[in-house]
């Protein structure tokens, strides 16, 4: 893992947390969506906070795809677990939601669990795997 790759994973964490927080703030303004009128969710897309959330999540998506290009899915997800802590901090201090001690304990356990895998290899090597970058496009099975 190079410094550039750690930066990619850091940007997955940052854009994911910020995007979720923007969406949550936007949806608080939009209000609860009636379960019988689920199409109302599309009107939420006009909310400025939701729009900023979408842009943040697009940045998240780009960095997430880049991370998956050099590491396993089961490596990238744990490595970005610090995002749960970010989310709790944003919920507590920006959205002023109540985060109880039990929830904090849950978040700590999640981070501990996912941190276990971060020390292992980032990529599973498959026997007979050829240099992917030289492959043409296609849908190999």
């Amino acid at each position, binding site marked *: 893992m190079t410094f550039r*790759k750690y930066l990619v994973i850091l940007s997955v964490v940052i854009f994911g947390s910020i995007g*979720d*927080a923007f*969406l*949550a703030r936007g*949806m608080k303004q939009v*209000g*609860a*969506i009636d*379960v019988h009128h689920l199409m109302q*969710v599309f009107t939420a897309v006009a909310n400025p906070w*939701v729009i900023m959330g979408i842009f943040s*999540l697009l940045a998240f*998506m780009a960095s*997430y*795809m*880049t991370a*998956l*290009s*050099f590491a*396993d*899915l*089961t490596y990238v*997800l*744990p490595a970005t677990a610090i*995002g*749960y802590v970010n*989310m*709790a901090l*944003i*919920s*507590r201090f920006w959205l002023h*939601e*109540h*985060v109880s001690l*039990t*929830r904090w*304990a*849950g*978040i*700590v*356990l*999640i981070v*501990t*669990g*996912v*941190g*276990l*895998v971060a020390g*292992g290899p980032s990529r*599973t090597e*498959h026997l007979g795997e050829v*240099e*992917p*970058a030289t*492959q043409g*496009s*296609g*849908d*190999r099975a």
Partner: protein
Amino acid sequence: MRTTYTWICIAFTVIAAASGDVLIALAMRRIGDLGDFRRKHGFLAVGARVLSESALFGGVFFMAMAFFSNLVGLSWADLSLMGPASAALTFATNAVGAKFFLHENVDKRRWIATVCVCVGVVLLTHT
């Protein structure tokens, strides 16, 4: 009643997000390291190569489903429940998907981590 709707929403989000994650991971594995690819072929070639992967479009479709489901969930529940619960359960589902569909090396350490995450989610729901 809203709690039931929230958990149905979380379940739908988890299934859609895990399907999306597995398909996108499959596409990116086929493409290889984007940094190396950009150095060899240039920035535009990266975009063309990424857009030529059909698995990616399947992944983006499922991620979009997860996005709107998450949006509905956020209108019913706090981010501090909806966010970690859906994301952590997606992580557990992804571990299964990665083992059986992507054939990743999900060893004992990664399974223990998955259990820790699931217990963490249970704690998160006890408020």
